[in-house]
């Protein structure tokens, strides 16, 4: 009798405890991401596994990442934040943090330790570029070219400056319709040393110089504004070479089997990751924290690399990346012989100024 009572009491206690913790967390979560292949890699790598563990949770996707900063600002002004977790690139995360729209967090408190025992802040290392940013993957902006359009008797392009060489490699190029990356590449090919690029680009003369270099190929450039443009232009044979995100090129090459090859030279690394909006209520915040802890551990980040050719942001995930994906990773040593890291600080300062000049130059 006594035993049953104790057991009953114990069960009741356990149940009430269970109920209490479930009540602490909201059961719905709105995740903002990019749609397409990237979002489905997130779905398979950690959202579906998380929902399998927590069947009570429902996840709503909002494919608004490319305008997340403007929308979050508007939500904040309206005093009604409807997003729980937002996937953004690092530059946007820095701006959201600057504007007080993203929550600052402590990596070692919020994120799991690496599988190798390293603390989260060591495991992610320098990739935590802002106090609000929880990086997931490293991607790169790099060039792809059509193998069937390489002129006969000429080596396939392997140097970033081949983009600027119309004599050797005639044909159209696709470049992004914004100064970031293009200006750096132009200066590199105008003879500026890699570690001096941003010093030069910070001066009006340097900006003129970069635009002048871009001017040598201006008539042969199709300017893109969506990441899907270049793969399409390459597949249609509209351009000979073009810049885009390496994962997009991966799907053109591996999945669509187009005659396209990668040119990894001077690829520019950038990050993609989460931010938690400032001003969530406690229940939603608790759920998001629980999810982020799960979704950014060593195994899940490595799992994501099964579905898309982006490198996991944790050092401890790198050994777990599947062998057949390694050669497509921007961080693979064979691909990473000459790389560039997006200079967030520089572009936060110079973006408006250089963009004005760039757009005015484009329109001329």
């Amino acid at each position, binding site marked *: 009798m006594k035993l049953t009572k104790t057991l009953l009491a114990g069960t009741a206690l356990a149940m009430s405890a269970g109920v209490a913790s479930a009540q602490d967390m909201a059961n719905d979560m709105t995740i903002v991401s990019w749609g397409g292949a990237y979002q489905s890699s997130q779905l398979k790598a950690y959202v579906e596994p998380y929902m399998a563990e927590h069947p009570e949770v429902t996840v709503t996707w909002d494919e608004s990442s490319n305008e997340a900063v403007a929308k979050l600002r508007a939500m904040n002004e309206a005093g009604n934040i409807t997003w729980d977790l937002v996937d953004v690139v690092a530059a946007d995360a820095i701006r959201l943090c600057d*504007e*007080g729209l993203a929550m600052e967090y402590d990596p070692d408190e919020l994120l799991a330790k690496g599988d190798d025992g390293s603390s989260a802040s060591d495991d992610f290392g320098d990739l935590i570029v802002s106090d609000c940013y929880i990086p997931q993957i490293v991607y790169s902006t790099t060039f792809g070219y059509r193998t069937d359009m390489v002129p006969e008797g000429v080596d396939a392009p392997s140097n970033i400056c081949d983009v600027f060489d119309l004599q050797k490699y005639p044909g159209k190029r696709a470049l992004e319709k914004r100064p970031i990356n293009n200006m750096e590449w132009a200066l590199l090919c105008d003879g500026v040393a890699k570690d001096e690029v941003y010093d030069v680009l910070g001066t009006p003369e340097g900006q003129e110089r970069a635009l002048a270099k871009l001017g040598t190929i201006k008539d042969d450039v199709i300017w893109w504004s969506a990441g899907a443009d270049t793969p399409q232009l390459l597949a249609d044979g509209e351009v000979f070479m073009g810049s885009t995100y390496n994962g997009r090129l991966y799907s053109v090459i591996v999945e669509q089997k187009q005659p396209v090859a990668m040119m990894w030279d001077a690829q520019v690394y950038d990050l993609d990751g989460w931010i938690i909006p400032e001003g969530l209520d406690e229940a939603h915040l608790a759920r998001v924290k629980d999810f982020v802890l799960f979704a950014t551990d060593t195994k899940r980040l490595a799992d994501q690399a099964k579905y898309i050719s982006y490198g996991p942001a944790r050092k401890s995930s790198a050994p777990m990346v599947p062998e057949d994906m390694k050669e497509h990773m921007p961080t693979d040593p064979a691909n990473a012989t000459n790389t560039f890291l997006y200079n967030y600080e520089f572009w936060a*300062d110079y973006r*408006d100024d250089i*963009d004005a000049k760039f757009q*005015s130059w484009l329109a001329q």
Partner: protein
Amino acid sequence: MSDTTQTGPIDMGSSAGNGKGDKPGPMLAADGRPLKRSLNRALRRQKLRALALIAPLLIFVLLTFIAPIADMLFRSVENDIVSNTLPSTTEALEGWDHTTGEAPSEAVFEDFYFDLFLASEAKEHTKLGTRLNYEKTGVSSMFRSTGRGLDDIGDDYLDQLEVIDKRWGDGAFWYALMSGTGTPAPEVVKARRKVLTRMSGDVLTGDVGFAPSNAIATLLPTTVRAYSDFAVYTALVDGKDVAKRDPWESVYVGLILDLNKADVSGYTGPEADALKAVKAALPEIKQVSLQSFFQSEDKDWVDPSVWATIQTYSPKYTSGYFLNAIDMQLTPDGIQMRPENEQIYIMLFKRTLFMSMMIMGSCILLGYPVAWLLANLPSKSANLLMILVLLPFWTSLLVRTSAWKVMLQQQGVINDVLVWLGLVSDGDRLVMINNQFGTIVAMTHILLPFMILPLYSVMQTIPPTYLRAAKSLGATNWTAFWRVYFPQSIPGIGAGSILVFILSIGYYITPEIVGGTTGTFISNRIAYHISSSLNWGLGAALGAILLACVLILYWAYDRIVGIDNVKLG
């Protein structure tokens, strides 16, 4: 109208005589009141009822349409972020003359330090940095990095203070010192609360739980101000007990600054001895001027042009965004043109107007015959044609635009056909997309139904007998059309043109996709500033100018053609 006349025995028509002076007195209604008043009352009641009936719609339109637009447009002149975030600094800067070529005085840097410290605790300083970065490149990172280093100078002072007396790092000790005894001076706290409210835009309610004494507020004004900032923020934003928390680093800085000037020998409040001990040891404390502190954080803080920018953008309202929107700029030396290599907006406005006209013109040319066919074919074939006209309406805009890409690109359908026919050689295929031509073609196609439908409904009302009559009187086909039919269809052209023109002036998705660099509109830049650069002020200014352009053109149209001449059917 008939119910109103029931208020009096005399019908409406007679009330006209009411105003005539030769009547002996005002005409009276049955109840003895003047008829005019009683009529007005009845009419007013009816008007109110009518207003009440449309009130839900009116309020809905006001709240969801007019108010947001007005709010957004207001941002084009709003600029209170500078004076709200740096209230003391902007005041202190008023006396500074940027033309001397020297950085502001130490006093300005002192005000700036305390303003910035509060702003960085409230995480508002980076917003200001972003705002000022629109005007002066590099300011954004100055605010961000300096915001991180603000604690250093206070920490150094605290280390030295703790050597003199361990209690200087203790929250309760500070609370006792700052509260003092005697008449309290709550207005200091109240003023700081107001500053924080303005800066953060949040409503701060509750009790701070701290008020300095009059004596200490007069003796150590800077310290009390910094401590009040700390108290207001801790109590009202963090919701913590002020007495139990260690003060901010800015308070130590304030203390050292105050003690340099203050004479504490006569002070008798709590912890007066500790104050006197620090005053005595002051020569041994290593002090740094705030100017050199800011210089060590970022050397540009002593650059006068940074301060001139802050000074220029101190007022609550600015013409800066509007000037930027017309390729000018508000500089400390007055209004100037932007450098040639940054001018873009006027050109884009002109291009937008020009291309919208082109699109409108091609819509008229293509739409007129189609509308004529629609109006004159037997109804069976006219219905089929109507469905063909409406079909694009039911197809997604993006699909239609992408279809044009497939058609027009160099490896596209049209070029392939031309090459196959031998009209162009494979080497020089026509460039028909990613330029103005592509935008005009795609947008004409998308906007064509907006021209055809009003034209069609106007043409339907033109009796075919007129044309026949003209011909039977000897007119040629052309004369009959031009002199008889066309003038009657002008209202349809007017309606269609206004629709097409106003729609195309604000289009941005299609030009973005097919416009390349020469076929984009001003709306593409507005979209960029709203969603990418987040310079909403500039976006709003560009939008306001665009709106003004449309209104002026509408007005001109009304003057020249007459808005009564517009018919949708």
